[in-house]
């Protein structure tokens, strides 16, 4: 059975070869599908491959026998219109120079970008350092400004304070030097021995003031205040309350009154009383 198969196969190959399809293949006269078929057969069957080789060989020999020598310009024309991988061997010096120039140019561009990039990075670093140092000095400046502002404030406060003192002292001097003003000295009672208060009374303007600087009174507590009274024809008249805080200067204006015979100060609950508490009489003096 297999013997018959082999015979059949050989017979088939033989008739395939003898069909003339291999000649047409070599002569380039087959459609694509037939070409593929021949190539497949050639791979499968050594006989087909050998036959193809023989046909090719014969056709090449035939062509060789019919050759015509081309003129030399074909050679130069051919060689001049193609390029080689080992070009440096045949390239003209001018062309070589041009090529070298192009390479150099490309390199320069590359270098330019390289340097530009490096310069940018350097600039960035310098900028960062500058920003940090500027930021630090800005902080320092702000701190200095704050310190200067606070010291300026304290100077201004001091000036203000001194200005107030000067104003108070000046108005006190005015009062003392005013001939219309009567200075009444209130002397300490048994409740406050050695205490004293100078009261300035101007009958023309009805103004009453206490000389805070020359005042010598014990300090009152938070629950009590001193109250100034005028005795007018035997009746006490309230002239306002005041505190003793120490280091006070100038005159403190009290309520006005047109006439009085005596001034007196009592210690009263904070805010003052309607009628003086006589057993808390501290100082008293007649005009």
């Amino acid at each position, binding site marked *: 059975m297999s013997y018959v198969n082999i015979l059949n196969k050989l017979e088939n190959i033989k008739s395939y070869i003898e069909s*003339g399809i291999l000649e047409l293949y070599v002569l380039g006269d087959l459609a694509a599908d037939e070409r593929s078929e021949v190539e497949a057969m050639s791979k499968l069957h050594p006989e087909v491959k050998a036959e193809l080789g*023989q*046909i090719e060989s014969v056709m090449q020999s035939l*062509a060789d026998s*019919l050759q015509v020598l*081309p*003129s030399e310009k074909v050679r130069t024309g*051919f060689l001049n219109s193609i390029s080689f991988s080992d070009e440096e061997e045949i390239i003209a010096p001018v062309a070589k120079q041009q090529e070298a120039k192009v390479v150099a140019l490309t390199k320069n561009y590359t270098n330019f970008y390289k340097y530009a990039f490096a310069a940018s990075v350097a600039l960035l670093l310098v900028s960062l350092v500058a920003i940090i140092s500027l930021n630090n000095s800005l902080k320092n400046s702000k701190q200095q400004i704050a310190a200067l502002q606070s010291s300026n404030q304290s100077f201004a406060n001091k000036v203000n304070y001194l200005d107030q003192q000067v104003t108070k002292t000046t108005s006190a001097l005015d009062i003392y030097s005013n001939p219309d003003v009567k200075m009444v000295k209130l002397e300490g009672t048994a409740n406050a021995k050695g205490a004293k208060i100078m009261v300035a009374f101007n009958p023309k303007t009805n103004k009453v003031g206490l000389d805070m600087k020359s005042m010598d009174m014990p300090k009152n507590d938070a629950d009590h205040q001193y109250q100034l009274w005028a005795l007018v024809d035997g009746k006490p008249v309230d002239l306002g309350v005041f505190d003793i805080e120490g280091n006070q200067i100038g005159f403190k204006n009290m309520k006005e009154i047109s006439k009085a015979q005596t001034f007196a100060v009592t210690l009263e609950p904070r805010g003052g009383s309607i009628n003086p508490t006589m057993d808390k009489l501290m100082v008293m003096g007649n005009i």
Partner: protein
Amino acid sequence: MLKNTYLIFKNSDYLRPIVINTKRKFLEEPDLILALQQRKKLGADALYEMYSGSLLGIVQRVIADKEIAEDVLQEGLVKIWNSIQQYDPTKGRLFTWMVNVMRNLAIDKVRSKDYRNHSKNQDLENHVNSIDERRNSEYKPEHLGVKDLLQKLRPEQKVIVDMIYFQGFTHVEVSDELAIPLGTVKTRLRMGIIELRKYFK
């Protein structure tokens, strides 16, 4: 002074550099293929030395004017150089592939308007003006070179080999042209080629 060129065998499992004496300008086919694939100057030189004559012979079978035939040869050589990557060595000889490239170029040239005008101006007597003209005219065996081996063939074989191999007719066209069955065309072609083998052994 000898100049050496190195070729690297890509297809082998290992790299084998070979040194070739370039003064000989002749390479075995695998080396030539390699040199062409690697675009070596040596490859171009060897290609020209080894095959320009045979290829011009093919072109002149189609184009009688040597000037034009040489232009086509040069164009064909450049085309071979540039499209060598399309050549598959497993499918046949380099020469077979090159002949196909050349023959197709020559036929294209003959069919071009350019060529027909040129031919008319040059030689109105020229009987191979174009394929179309030849199709309508009777085949003239005297176009063949007298000294070539084709003369050793029987006339009915010679005509078919020449028309298909050298002039690019298809076997179907030959069958039409000569009014003989397709099978007969194939058989005569095969017999003619077998006959030629005797002379090249």
